[in-house]
């Protein structure tokens, strides 16, 4: 029997992404957010998650996609990273999918830049491709911080 794993999927700018289900703490609707002035652009702000303060990362900016259209309420995918919980802001939540190892392929060589380090590869689903996101890399942001510091 082939190895399977479960992914929590979501959409960003019509692209399908997935993070490993075991790294996801919870998925919640948009919460009131406190913006952090002077913070790197990828940090959307801080949210109060039942008494726990969680940093919200604008995943669109993080993945260098088009900024979200104004007025769109983002969903929070709260993931567990080495540095505590982090909320990833996404457009829309998809299903939980179970995929086999065999459908996985590494990212094409033509994918370059900092994005490449965050995308582990793709799973070939029946109707479309699911980008597999590396939670740690997406939350670490040391590269994003450096970039922010350099422009300052």
């Amino acid at each position, binding site marked *: 029997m082939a190895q399977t794993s479960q992914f929590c999927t979501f959409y960003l700018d019509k692209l399908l992404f997935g993070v490993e289900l075991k790294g996801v703490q919870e998925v919640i609707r948009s919460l*009131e*957010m*406190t*913006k*952090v*002035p*002077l*913070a*790197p652009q990828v*940090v959307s*702000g*801080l*949210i*109060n998650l039942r*008494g726990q*303060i969680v*940093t919200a*990362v604008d995943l669109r900016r993080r993945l260098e996609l088009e900024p979200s259209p104004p007025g769109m309420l983002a969903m929070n995918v709260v993931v567990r990273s080495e*540095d*505590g919980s*982090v909320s990833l802001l996404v457009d829309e939540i998809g299903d939980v999918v179970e995929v086999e190892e065999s459908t996985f392929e590494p990212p094409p060589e033509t994918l370059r830049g900092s994005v490449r380090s965050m995308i582990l590869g793709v799973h070939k689903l029946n109707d479309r491709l699911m980008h597999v996101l590396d939670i740690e890399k997406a*939350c*670490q*942001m040391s590269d994003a*911080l450096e970039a*922010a*510091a350099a422009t300052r």
Partner: protein
Amino acid sequence: MSENDSDIVKDFLIESYENLDRLDRELVGLEKDPEDRDALSSVFRTIHTIKGTCGFLGFGKLEAVAHVGENLLTRLRDRQLTLTPEITTALLTMVDVIRQMLTQIEKDGQEGERDDSVLIATLTRLQQVPAAPAPEAPVLAPVPVLPQTDIVKAAPAIVPVPDAERDPESIPSAPNIGDILKERAGVTEAAIELATEKQREGDPRRLGEILVEQGSARPADVVDALRIQQSNRASAAPAADSTIRVDVGLLDKVMNLVGELVLARNQVLQFANRMKDTSFLAASQRLNLITTELQAGVMKTRMQPIGNIWSQFPRTVRDVALGCGKEVKIEMEGKETELDKTIIEAIKDPLTHLVRNSVDHGIELPNARVKAGKDRIGRLILRAFHEGGQVIIEISDDGAGLNVERIRQKAQERNLITAEQAGRMSEREIFNLIFLPGFSTAEKVTNVSGRGVGMDVVKTNVEKIGGTVDIQSALGRGTTVRVKIPLTLAIIPALIVTCSGDRYAIPQVSLLELVRLGAEDVSKGIELVHGAPIYRLRGRLLPLVYLNRELKLTGDGRPAKDSAVNIVVLQADERQFGLVVDQINDTEEIVVKPLRKQLKTVKIFAGSSIMGDGRVALILDVLGLAQYAGVVTETRAHAIADKVTASAGAASDKRTFLLFAGPGDSRMAIPLSTLARLEEFPVAQVEMSGSQWVTQYRGKILPLIRLNVVLEERRNRLRALQVPPTLDSPPIQVLVLNHEGHSYGLVVDRILDIVEDVADVRSEANRASVLYSVVIGNRVTELLDIPAILRGAVTTKALPNAVSQSVEAAN
């Protein structure tokens, strides 16, 4: 091992660790004062307990080590041996070995494979009584186990035997019964000698009993003596019975819950303010009070006296001093100063490092000290005290002090600073260079005297908990390191302000006062000097920082002309500045939550907190904000390091100058730091004292030095001095300066500006009273030599004419 057993082992470990820490202290103390019988008995008791318990728990090796140690201690206690440094070292080594074994046991429940025969042999050898007729070969467990007989046969019914007397742990501690009897009942020395001799020969009875039997003491006296001894001991005993051990994890949990409760309380209070129901209001007030008290109580449980970590320092100092052949005496003040447990843990290593450093590098070798006219024995002083909501810990030594020149040189060699920077840095800034990371490794390699090994780690660790480190030193006289740390990290009082619709919390610790300028006062109160807004707060210039502008929030930062302005006066390092915010809300107790790694680069925030309405608010880091806004211009060590790597000519090197018009409309400047206040006096207030202008200022006579007179040619000067002010002239502008404890007023024509500039293009002065000409703000400006001008004003005193009297009167 069963559950029960492991519990016993755990208790044994905790207790033993504590006891061993005390042992270190007591042994070092004993070395200084070998006659301290209390300490010796206590050391003995501890080792005895450990030996007994580990025998019971089956730790054979541990027991063996403790056993020989105990034998050695018995000799010491019975005065058959005197304590030598060698013995102390051996005993300390034994303590270390026991500690290692305990750590091992803690880890896997086993003593581990180890060979302590060398230590055992040393300890055995040391117990040979020197010059004793025949060293007894078999050493018996020497505890004089007290027999379970009634205490004094002749007085059976009077006294119940004090329990402690039967307890083998409480070997009679000083004053011993013999001494008391001698003093109180006039029992002769000889009689006591005789009785102790009998005891030593194997008489199982107690001293009192023997003495009574001998007829040397009356039973009643013995009973009295016992009572005295008992009460002495009781007062010396630690208050162990009134305390319980609590797991730290549990305390942390309670602390977190209290944090949540504080948040809930804040919510309820906000809600209550909107309600008209008085009984609900009363209930919420009560909730408020109880929460505050509960919070204070829980915080207190986490407080520990700093003495807990200091207690290891005598041992550290002894070891380091012995290692480098120095003699050092350690003194402690304020041991009882309490700090939060997490802070205590965080500062333990930095403090140990500082102490080691002081002994290793600060204090000189005994001979060098004598040569320098100091006491052979170096002094290391630890002080702790509260000051303005913070705890200050000082580590001072009377050693060689820091050599400014050498540090300057070293820092340049290591490319930590440029020659030009080095020339401009103040002594204090130079001292702080030793906290630079590069500096420490350099020291380690070259081993040049002076401090620096790992000082950067000290600074980083202290700053991690929101503290600061500062160093002061006088060459040849010693060094003081000052560590400032917050009392607690968990819950702090803070002022909540609003800026562009978001709330920010400002820790109350940095808050000095709040100023509100009404709409009509704004244009008058806030002045612009070269674009930089300032506010005159009681005659002092307060630089203003607009929060929304610093945070790059919406708007141009300036409030609308017709609205009131709220200024929060803050203190950062030694500087004060005014923070302009949209609205000042309230003070609140906030629970500090640290910022995640993603936001650590934003130095302007110290953390975040959840407000009463459930929203998150950021906590401003006042020092970070001040640095960001350029208020704190003093280059901090880290800034320098960053700057060297960054592009040259960074902005943080700027100094602030006060620009004013001198005679003939020339541009002149003084460093803003020399200025105490700016004042304006109507001419009517200027009085003549002889030919000197003076004015009454804050209950004192302020001599007014006219700049145009000072800068006149000398032959004209006397004439100019005589001229009294004409009453119809405009008010005079006065710079109030403090110099060597006196205030002087420098009368200038016009105050122009306050500017920040590097001012590094300079040329020699072409007249007296001017230090040099510099380019400030793209224009040549003369920098005044304040001390010279004031000296000039004072030296006229010596002139044998009317001028002298006037100055005298003015002073």
